């Protein structure tokens, strides 16, 4: 599968990474090269093979649905990049999304 510029732009949009127009050609070449490389898997017969999502032969452990931690307001917000105003309640901030 070779990707064209439109496909690369669509992938970048899905991945939420801004890509400049002048980068599209180069990226299309690189990503197509990688896809070409991985496509050799097509020659492997995988009929009846169960996909392997983890090597751990574990049943996921269960625990009681109770609060185990909390009240760490300051720690949670300590690395927020912008606008944590504690005397206004303390929030993560984002650009305005509702007009």
């Amino acid at each position: 599968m070779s990707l064209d510029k439109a496909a690369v732009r669509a992938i970048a949009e899905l991945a939420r990474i801004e890509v400049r127009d002048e980068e599209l050609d180069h990226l299309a070449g690189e990503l197509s090269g990688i896809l070409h490389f991985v496509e050799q898997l097509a020659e492997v017969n995988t009929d009846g093979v169960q996909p392997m999502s983890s090597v751990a032969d574990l049943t996921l452990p269960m625990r009681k649905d109770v609060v185990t931690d909390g009240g760490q307001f300051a720690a949670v917000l300590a690395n927020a990049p912008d606008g944590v105003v504690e005397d206004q309640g303390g929030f993560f901030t984002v650009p305005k999304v509702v007009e």
Partner: protein
Amino acid sequence: MSELTKLTIAQARDKMAKGEFTAVELTEAHIKAMEAKRNLGAYIVETPDLAREQAKASDLRRQAGQAGALEGIPLGIKDLFCTKGVQTTAASHILEGFKPQYESTVSGKLLDAGSVMLGKLNLDEFAMGSSNMTSYFGKVTNPWKSKSDAAKQLVPGGSSGGSAAAVAARIAMGATGTDTGGSIRQPAAFCGITGIKPTYGRCSRWGVVAFASSLDQPGPMARDVRDCAIMLGAMAGHDSKDSTSAPMAVPNFEAALTGDIRGLKVGIPKEYRPDGLSDEIQQVWEQGIEWLKAAGATPVEITLPHTKYALPTYYIVAPAEASSNLARYDGVRFGLRVEGSSLDDMYKKTRAAGFGPEVRRRIMIGTYVLSAGYYDAYYSKAQKVRRLIADDFKKAFETVDVILTPTAPSAAFGMDENTDDPVTMWLNDVFTIPTSLAGLPGLSLPAGLNADGLPLGLQLIGRPFDEETVFKVAGVMESAAGFTATPEGV
């Protein structure tokens, strides 16, 4: 270079127990060495003040008769482990300035065992790379020099390149690494040290910045097999905070170093001799087989027929998981934020500015193979081939106890090599990736030097949760190899 920095962890432990020197003295020697070798770029952040405090506390614990397994041992921590109050970046601009409010399970266990943290070690950005050239905070230089071209700057391997370089240059007695497709083993081989990726689930991933969650596994990097066994004993163990952490007891790995491997069967996979494998790698591998024979083990040729598909499988599975894991870097809760005209615009600008080219490339490939219409053709297909690769190993371990292969297809290469095409760079991990996909323990140890005087590594692969056999065989090979070479200035 101080005599104290030349000791192994086991030697320093025994000498401190006898009162020959203190943790403070040992730590000071390492802080001095670390500062003298800043040219290597091994550390992103040095924490000398914290180290001194920890060393003092360690000496007090020892006086009180409460010495732990790593009491007073100065270690470096890969900057992928969250360390409370100390910047943790994954070598990415997007996490610059991030100070975790908690300690990762593994680094916390090392502190509980009495160790001292010297600082945070450089790596490829988000542990994606085999050269340590993709770090936002600068590349790491391999302390080893080529005899034929001493001016040539060599890579330390990656992604745990800072860890490997620091241990080789004696500016940490040991270090943590993480391994997703070879990130402990390949840099260990390039820098002439020992490192083990334990069985998936042996060490907790909690508090380790995630790359590919079904593959990531922390492990120790140190100067010899015994030191790795000591460190792994302190790092391993079940952790309820990581749901894939194995609820298994941690054996005494050091006690496995009995030196007796008589009767063991060692698998030699014929698929690990690809066309064009260099003679020097071939020779060191043959030498390794001879050492094991001489010690009473039996080499057995085995076949791992899906080996050639491991690399393409990995480069679907790992980017897919990475694209999902790295979705959290959105400029809202931590890390870099670049303002935009809307929420989406802020996400896109932040991620464009925060991620380097290799990370961006992998996120985009991962996004593509998981997208509607392509999921079955790529991701699901790769998961099926992954099972076939794991089954190959399962079958092989019905007849052998351990498998011996080269660690990497070459010695350390120059910083200007292998940079044009991402796929060429990925070939470095051709011998380590199959083990990762199967979740098995893999250890690399230095086995000799090539014609240029650069270290070459051999890899031992074991059954799941049988690190003990891996350590036992590695100990025998280490004695036979008698590898005492060090980089210049050590």
